[in-house]
């Protein structure tokens, strides 16, 4: 293409902007804002420590969490068992270190499932509107009115309690919230002029949904997915506490569930995995809040 003559210099007409704009990628900007936020950085470092401990902790500690290493109900501080032992005499610290793995995996995978199903259904409902929207939202409401814990218990009871079924159960009961959130964002963005402009550029529905509208709808979805991860960990613990956890897999919830009858005699058997859950969910919540603040344009002005 030939270059149009530059006899009128637009840079003279609009000098203020040229000076004012410092090319700064919004993603980088959001990351900096996130890291400058004290509580978010605290959450992130807590989470990093927890993940590292779960990854390399069991190897370093070297005690088999399933082995009976001491007398049952040895209190914390007992030589050889820093956090004491449970009702079978198994080392609590070894259990907490290894138990983080299934807990975190279930939390993350279930959250990913929740967000994935929810975003897909929310996209379709919000973008197409009309009868598709009505049908999908009725379907969503159907899942919303079912008590989540009961439905998950039914699913886990029908199939055998394994990590897979628990993850599936959490994912199936959790998605309606993400669907409604995504749908609301799509309804807001769908009729904005830039979407119309992309449509007049000849874009297909698929392209408009995933390349044009979804990126703009992501900020609240990202925040929700962080909080959903925390929620899924709690949900897994709740199921395990009720005895529906995978008995072959030592997760924090399973530890609490197996020791819950001895809560009054040996508080440490339940409290120490409980504190681990608490700290993990707290860290995730802090990270979620931090992302929310970093992605919220109003916060940038401060």
């Amino acid at each position, binding site marked *: *293409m*030939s*270059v*149009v*003559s*530059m006899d*009128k*210099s*637009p*840079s003279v*007409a*609009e000098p*203020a*902007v*040229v000076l004012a*704009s410092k*090319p700064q*990628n*919004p993603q980088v900007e959001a990351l900096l804002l996130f890291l400058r936020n004290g509580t978010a950085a605290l959450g992130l470092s807590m989470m990093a420590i927890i993940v590292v401990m779960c990854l390399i902790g069991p190897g370093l500690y070297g005690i088999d969490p399933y082995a009976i290493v001491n007398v049952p109900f040895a209190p914390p501080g007992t030589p050889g068992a820093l956090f004491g032992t449970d009702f079978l005499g198994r080392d609590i610290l070894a259990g907490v270190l290894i138990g983080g793995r299934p807990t975190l995996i279930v939390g993350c995978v279930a959250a990913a499932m929740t967000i994935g199903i929810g975003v897909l259904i929310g996209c379709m409902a919000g973008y197409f*509107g*009309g009868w598709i929207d009505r049908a999908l939202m009725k379907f969503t409401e159907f899942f919303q009115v079912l008590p989540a814990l009961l439905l998950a218990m039914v699913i886990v009871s029908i199939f055998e309690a394994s990590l897979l079924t628990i993850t599936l159960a959490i994912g199936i009961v959790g998605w309606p919230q993400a669907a409604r959130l995504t749908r609301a964002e799509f309804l807001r963005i769908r009729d*904005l*002029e*830039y979407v*119309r*402009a*992309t*449509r*007049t*550029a*000849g*874009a*297909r529905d698929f*392209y408009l949904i995933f390349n*044009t509208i979804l*990126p*703009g709808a992501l900020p609240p979805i990202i925040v929700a997915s962080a909080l959903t991860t925390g929620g899924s960990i709690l949900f897994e613990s709740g199921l395990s506490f009720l005895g529906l956890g995978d008995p072959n897999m030592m997760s924090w919830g399973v530890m609490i569930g197996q020791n819950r009858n001895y809560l009054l005699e040996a508080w440490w058997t339940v409290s120490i995995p409980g504190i681990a859950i608490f700290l993990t969910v707290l860290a995730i919540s802090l990270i979620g809040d931090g992302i929310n603040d970093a992605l919220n344009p109003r916060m940038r002005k401060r």
Partner: protein
Amino acid sequence: MSTAPLLEVTDLVVEVDNGKRILPVLDGVTFSVDAGRTLGLVGESGCGKSMTALAIMGLLPQGFRVKSGDIKLDGKSLLSMGPDALRKLRGSVMSMVFQEPMTSLNPVFTVGDQIGEALRLHEHLNAADARTRAIEMLRAVQIPAPEERVDNYPHQLSGGMRQRVMIAMALACRPRLLICDEPTTALDVTVQAQIFSLLETLQKEMGTSIILITHDLGAVAEMADDVAVLYAGKRAEAGPVATILDNPSHPYTRGLMSCTPRLRLGSAALTPGHTLAEVRGMVPPLGQFEAGCRFSPRCPMADAHCHAAPPPDVHLGASQTVLCWKVTQEQAA
């Protein structure tokens, strides 16, 4: 240049079904645009200008539909095309620039990504080639330092620059028809003049036909070769710009012209001039049109005849068409 017009809109009737009633939006709109020429589509808000544009693009909102008439691009009827064929034309053969440069760009992508979008969709360019073409387009719309601007996000640009980016997006695939829906309404006058001269330069270079939708007759005088005045979904008057502005025959066109402010500077600004005229009343809402001439409730010349029956199209001279009983009567006399 071929003699057949690039775009022919014939007796276009568009209706909206609001759930209770079916209301007419456009009623027998006819105009044509020759290759490389500019048509000004003029009227107040609610006269159907934007609906005409959306009907051409095949993007009428839900509930709206074309009842009759035809839209031909290059001799092929757009209305008989399937949605996929129409989608392939959008952005490549015909494209559109919107009114609000502040909201017409996607805030989460760089301008380079957005200019390259049409190229990736239609010409299947890879990212690197699309970027090169985007830089070329930014240079063509006279944005300084295009190699840096291509990586900017819309919020880093001023209104005028964003509208240039919009034009670059619309022209990326060298469309034959460009619809500009009030492209300068949101911009200040100096930028407005720059945008118009830019559009003219690009039009000369690419041979693109332009439909300029506006309510500003000053813009029409500056840019357009032909003009069509819409009122309440009907074409009130049409013809070459020079003829219409020189000899406006429809009372609505005359009213619009007397509403255009004239700049008085220096000592003239101190002397009292006449106050700016107005066209009294409002465009009637959809479905509440007069049985006779739709402009008659606001027309200073209207008589009983005007209120009773809708006027026919009258040809004045070689190229001017007017929809007015008064002109008909004058001609008969």
